[in-house]
């Protein structure tokens, strides 16, 4: 029986705490009385995954019929799937998407459906490379469909292949991929790594245009998503759900397949990253020392390559298929069962160790804007009810925050960092003054459509992602962060934890309460 997560109160006997620090680690001694939120151990994985997929396809939930009964030779079938931003890190082969899509294609082949198209639901993310597609889909799926032009990637800027489905009662435009919408059946295959993923968001965002996405990817929505990891209190999700209802009312037939993973995030060689520090045995200590010392002597680009090659031995904890909302409710239950930990009360200071990877730097560099987004967007929002840190509190992020960018994947980030953040860091000003010009820039659009670049507007969304945290916090300190890059983000840098805590005290008072979110593996705080 896997042990649940819990909150540890630091005392004299507590060993130093492991902090992620980009492509390295830090051991920090937190003051006595600090709290450390440890994630639950990985739930037991399903042993017969193929069997579970078959069962899900045959026994859908909600108002849905078994998949086989929806297939016939004259139909058009579109299968959309989550892109490379999930899961993190990429899972060991076989990726759950490949197993699910193989099962769907097996049935489509049995039914003689020739008009089948796969679409990577990129939204405004970068196009996946061939090796990423092969990893996510498996060689069998790739070889059967890619040579025939039946494996495509969503292009939000291809106006000819987008279609307006309608508008919500609040005037939000729903413009989606034409092929997906006009197909007789749209099957969506998802990986629900965190509670933010899935549901109506899969189609309403993943297959939408910029003109549609901007209705929920904006500062106002983000500030009113408390948090966007809590579906029922997230304005981001409310907007997507409204759009989902428009899509349903327009007659688009969606068969949603959602999958959940446990938190077996690191391979055996990095076992110490998943263990609680006082349970480290000799091998774990030796592994930690060897890894830390080796990483100190490794050039950053090499360390990045090593970490990016990590594959997570995630286990599948559930597969549900059928009607979107019914499926998603079950998915959320499983995600919460794996990740949720009760925490009593907020604290003055929240500390976060940021790892080498976030959703938008797979096989790439985590630039300062992505550091900001991972810390204040994702990890800050890993809560239900209220944030782990009080209003006016301080967040301390641990990350080197080097001003390095990937020019192929993140071209507009470079200009955002140099041209926008030098003027202002206020999300509202940034949104009103700069967003449109970046979003409509023909060069960024060209790179998004033909290369592997994120859309020109993407760095703006990263900034909005942290808008709720910026609105809530009294200060942000980056421990070990490059001073110049940290200042550009509008934050302070500190070289030691003691310095960072001292700086934080000047904001929150002399005897602050401290909570550390010991993640990854992923953990979500249920704060009362």
């Amino acid at each position: 029986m896997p042990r649940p997560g819990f909150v540890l109160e630091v005392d004299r006997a507590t060993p130093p705490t492991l902090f992620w620090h980009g492509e390295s680690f830090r051991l920090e001694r937190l003051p006595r009385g600090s709290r450390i939120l440890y994630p639950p151990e990985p739930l037991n994985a399903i042993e017969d995954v193929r069997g579970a997929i078959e069962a899900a396809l045959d026994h859908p939930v909600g108002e849905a019929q078994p998949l086989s009964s929806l297939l016939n030779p004259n139909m058009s079938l579109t299968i959309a799937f989550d892109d490379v931003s999930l899961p993190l890190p990429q899972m060991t082969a076989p990726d759950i998407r490949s197993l699910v899509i193989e099962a769907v294609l097996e049935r489509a082949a049995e039914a003689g459906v020739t008009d089948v198209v796969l679409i990577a639901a990129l939204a405004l993310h970068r196009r996946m490379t061939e090796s990423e597609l092969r990893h996510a889909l498996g060689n069998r799926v790739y070889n059967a469909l890619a040579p025939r032009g039946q494996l495509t990637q969503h292009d939000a800027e291809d106006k000819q292949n987008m279609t307006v489905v309608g508008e919500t009662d609040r005037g939000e435009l729903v413009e989606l991929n034409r092929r997906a919408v006009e197909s007789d059946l749209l099957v969506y295959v998802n990986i629900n790594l965190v509670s933010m993923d899935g549901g109506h968001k899969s189609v309403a965002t993943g297959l939408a245009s910029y003109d549609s996405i901007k209705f929920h990817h904006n500062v106002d929505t983000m500030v009113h998503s408390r948090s966007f990891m809590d579906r029922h209190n997230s304005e981001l999700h409310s907007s997507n759900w409204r759009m989902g209802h428009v899509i349903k009312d327009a007659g688009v037939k969606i068969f949603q397949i959602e999958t959940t993973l446990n938190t077996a995030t690191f391979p055996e060689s990095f076992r110490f990253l998943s263990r609680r520090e006082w349970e480290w045995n000799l091998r774990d200590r030796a592994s930690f020392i060897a890894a830390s010392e080796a990483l100190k002597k490794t050039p950053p680009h090499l360390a990045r390559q090593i970490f990016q090659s990590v594959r997570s031995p995630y286990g599948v904890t559930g597969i549900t298929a059928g009607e979107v909302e019914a499926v998603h409710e079950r998915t959320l239950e499983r995600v919460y069962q794996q990740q949720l930990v009760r925490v009593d009360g907020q604290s003055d200071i929240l500390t976060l160790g940021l790892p080498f990877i976030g959703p938008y730097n797979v096989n790439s560099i985590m630039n300062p804007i992505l550091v900001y987004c991972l810390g204040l967007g994702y990890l800050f929002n890993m809560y239900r009810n209220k944030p782990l840190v009080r209003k006016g509190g301080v967040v301390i992020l641990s990350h080197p925050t080097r001003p390095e960018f990937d020019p192929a994947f993140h071209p507009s980030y470079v200009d955002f960092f140099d041209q926008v953040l030098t003027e202002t860091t206020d999300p509202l000003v940034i949104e009103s003054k700069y967003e449109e010009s970046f979003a409509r820039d023909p060069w960024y659009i060209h790179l998004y459509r033909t290369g592997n670049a994120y859309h020109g507007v993407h760095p703006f969304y990263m900034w909005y992602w942290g808008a709720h945290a910026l609105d809530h916090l009294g200060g942000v300190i980056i421990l070990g962060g490059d001073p110049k890059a940290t200042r550009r983000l509008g934050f302070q840098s500190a070289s030691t934890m003691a310095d960072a805590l001292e700086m934080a005290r000047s904001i929150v008072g002399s005897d602050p309460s401290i909570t550390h979110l010991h993640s990854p593996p992923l953990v979500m705080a249920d704060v009362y």
Partner: protein
Amino acid sequence: MRAFLLDSSIAPLTRRLTHPTIINAAVLDTLERPIIFVANHQSHLDTPLILAVLPPKLRHHTVVGAGADFFFDRRTKGFFSSTLLGAIPIDRVRPSRASAELATQLLEDGWNLVLFPEGARTPDGLTQELKSGAAQMAIKVGRPVVPLFIDGTYEIFGKASDRIHPGSTTIVIGQPLVPHEGEKVSDLNDRITDALGVLGREAATDFFTARQPDQALPFPAPSRSWVEAWRTSEHRHQHEEPRRWPKMFGSRR
């Protein structure tokens, strides 16, 4: 001996496995040795298939460029490759003078040469970018290049296949491309690429459609539907079963 083996066993067996349809076969009767045949590369069956469709007068005087790292990494493999198929080693990892000199010498001695300028079998059925070695050799010896497009061997025994699934194939034979006086290697390579593209489209459509100017893709998609491809691959589960036996055949790389 080699001609006997080719005519009596390899060519009939290959025809039986691949049921080739040859388009524009008349070109082969007009050719004078030595010729450089270039073809797209879908399968290990491509070499015996080309030898099988060539008329005996050409087949008996044809050698085939084969990846030294794969076909000549072990003595036994090298022996059988050269004896049965007339393979000569081409260094793919580091372009070497020795490979080029051997190929040139054989051409000058009147041997035809088959090259696969993609450098390796296609991993996905799509034709890859052509390397310029064939064009370079044609210019060097001043002999024509005859493009051949092979369609169907990927489904029969493609790179991802673990066994042969007998089926049918199409080979489209192009007109000889004679290097012009002073022509650059890249220009001839472009002409070969274009010619192979047209032949590929012809394999999927017909002579006239293939030559329409609005054809966007340099090479066409395979002609079979995904359902057929899926069915022939249905027993493969490449990523779930750990290997039970050491690899007995194939490159050690």
